[in-house]
């Protein structure tokens, strides 16, 4: 169980995490979704006591992370940033972590086998591929048989087999009654792995809902229009609640209007249409739609246009 209340972290001028309140419950996989730079990693660091919140509070299994007398038994963490001395072997890395809690060498070797690093366990971790590094990070997260798992972008750098393995692992850990909190910037990944979603953008909470509900609510219909007068049509349809994207010349993807509305509007203004159809937005588009206003560079773009 992870409970954050009004969690806020300010670095200089930047609000990396802004007034986040959420609860991550045991027995399911909770996805932590947001574009790159939206504050996911910072939130994870606050949960783990690596950084101190500017305001607000966050506890794991009822206590501040730092207050746990045996934290590796409570929480297993995989951070996105590399957290391994490059000159040390995988086995010695895990052993050094295990020894802080009196965990045996036997357990270290078990974990090495579990994540499939047996053949390279005595090689220096600096020579590891990204995928091997992820597996080692996962081994260190699982070392203490923790109640709660916190994994920041665990599928990064893994091959399809590794991704499949992580998904199954996360699901079975949750089925055992553990709290599993896993971040990603990929909606499609979360849709197949997570039961519940916490979505953030620019450090703020956007949604805290089940995956099914999120998909139902977010994935609307798109109107696909092909016209030689794309610019003119675009001007006509753009208003509050309507979003238009252009993927290729003479094509508009309109969100927030029905095909009938678009067709009638075009007829009224004598705009020639070469195609008018409707299609279901993908999960990625739904996610982008939700976080669109919160992606930092988009905000910058808007400011520049305004200025």
């Amino acid at each position, binding site marked *: 169980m992870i409970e954050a209340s009004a969690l806020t972290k300010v670095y200089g001028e930047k609000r990396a995490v802004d007034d986040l309140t959420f609860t991550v419950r045991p027995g399911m996989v909770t996805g932590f979704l947001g574009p790159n730079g939206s504050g996911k990693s910072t939130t994870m*660091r606050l949960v*783990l*006591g*690596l*950084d*101190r919140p500017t305001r607000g509070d966050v506890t794991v299994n009822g206590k501040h*992370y*730092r207050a*746990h*007398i*045996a*934290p*590796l*038994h409570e*929480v297993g*963490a995989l*951070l996105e*940033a*590399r*957290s*391994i*001395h*490059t*000159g*040390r*072997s995988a086995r*010695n*890395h895990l*052993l*050094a*972590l295990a*020894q*802080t*809690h*009196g*965990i*045996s060498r036997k*357990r270290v070797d*078990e974990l090495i*086998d*579990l*994540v*499939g690093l047996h053949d390279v366990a005595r090689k220096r971790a600096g020579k590891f591929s990204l995928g091997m590094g992820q597996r080692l990070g996962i081994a*260190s997260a*699982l070392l*203490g*048989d923790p109640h709660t798992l916190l994994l920041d972008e665990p599928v990064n750098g893994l091959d399809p*087999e590794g991704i499949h*393995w992580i998904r*199954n*692992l996360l699901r*079975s*850990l949750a*089925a*055992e009654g553990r709290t599993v909190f896993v971040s990603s910037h990929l909606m499609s990944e979360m849709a197949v792995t997570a039961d519940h979603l916490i979505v953030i953008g620019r450090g703020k909470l956007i949604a805290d809902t089940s995956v099914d509900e999120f998909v139902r609510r977010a994935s609307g219909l798109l109107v696909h229009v092909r016209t030689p007068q794309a610019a003119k049509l675009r001007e006509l349809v753009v208003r509050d609640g309507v979003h238009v994207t252009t993927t290729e010349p003479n094509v508009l993807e309109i969100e927030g209007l029905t095909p009938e509305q678009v067709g009638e509007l075009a007829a009224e203004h004598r705009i020639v249409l070469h195609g008018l159809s409707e299609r279901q937005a993908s999960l990625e588009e739904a996610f982008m739609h939700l976080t669109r206003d919160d992606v930092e560079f988009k905000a910058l773009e808007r400011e520049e246009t305004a200025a």
Partner: protein
Amino acid sequence: MNAITEALPRLERTGRVTQLRVLRSEWTKLVSVRSTRWSLLVAVILTVGLPMLFAGVTSAHWGSMGPNERADRHPLDIALAGVNVSQLAIAVLGVLTITAEYSTGMIRSTMIAVPKRLPVLWGKMIVYSLVGFVLMLPSVLIAFVGSQAILDRHHLLQISFSHHGVARSVIGGAVYLVLVGIFAYTIGAITRNTAGGIATFAGIFFVIPPLMNILPSSWNNAITPYLPSEAGRQIFSLTRGAHSLSPAAGGALFAGYCAAALALAAVLLATRDT
């Protein structure tokens, strides 16, 4: 790959993080990195080897030296010549012991395992000090006995271990190196950066002392004895300069500098974001 899709094997909870367990962990960390082993080997070789080399050269040239030059040679200077050089290896490794964790990101794993943090600061210091002392004490003793054996034929260069101050100076060489290691380590803990840590140490130990000679001599004499490097070297100096502190006072002051730096490192470690 079916084997790894099994759920996680259960583990008997073995209780809490203790200082002793952190010590064991820090021991594993120290000895499992190749650069550590090399640095320590270099420190041993320099501490033992340089006195042997100087003793050999002195012995070979003894016949051609004038009385003044002969009088300038002191057997203890020869025996402890390695300390002045190996202190650099000890200091660099002291800095690296902690800054390497920051540069590689290992510090995050360490802080996640030991979120109270301070046991790590003490643990690294204790392990490194013990390893340093256990290696450096035999090194200085071997350097003393060995250089004396090489200088065997020269009556003027013989000095007994039981002669007043000799045992203190020789063992003091090892104590000094351990304190240098601790001092450098705390600087590493404060700067959290390898280059910054080594530069700061070098500044305090090798740059500031010669600059003192530019000052009026009354200032120089008033300040220099209290510099960490000057205070520290009294621990293994047999003879005492007119303005120098006593070995006990110098050693205590240097240890005090280490303690103050360590206290600052502790406060910063407990409060800074990682």
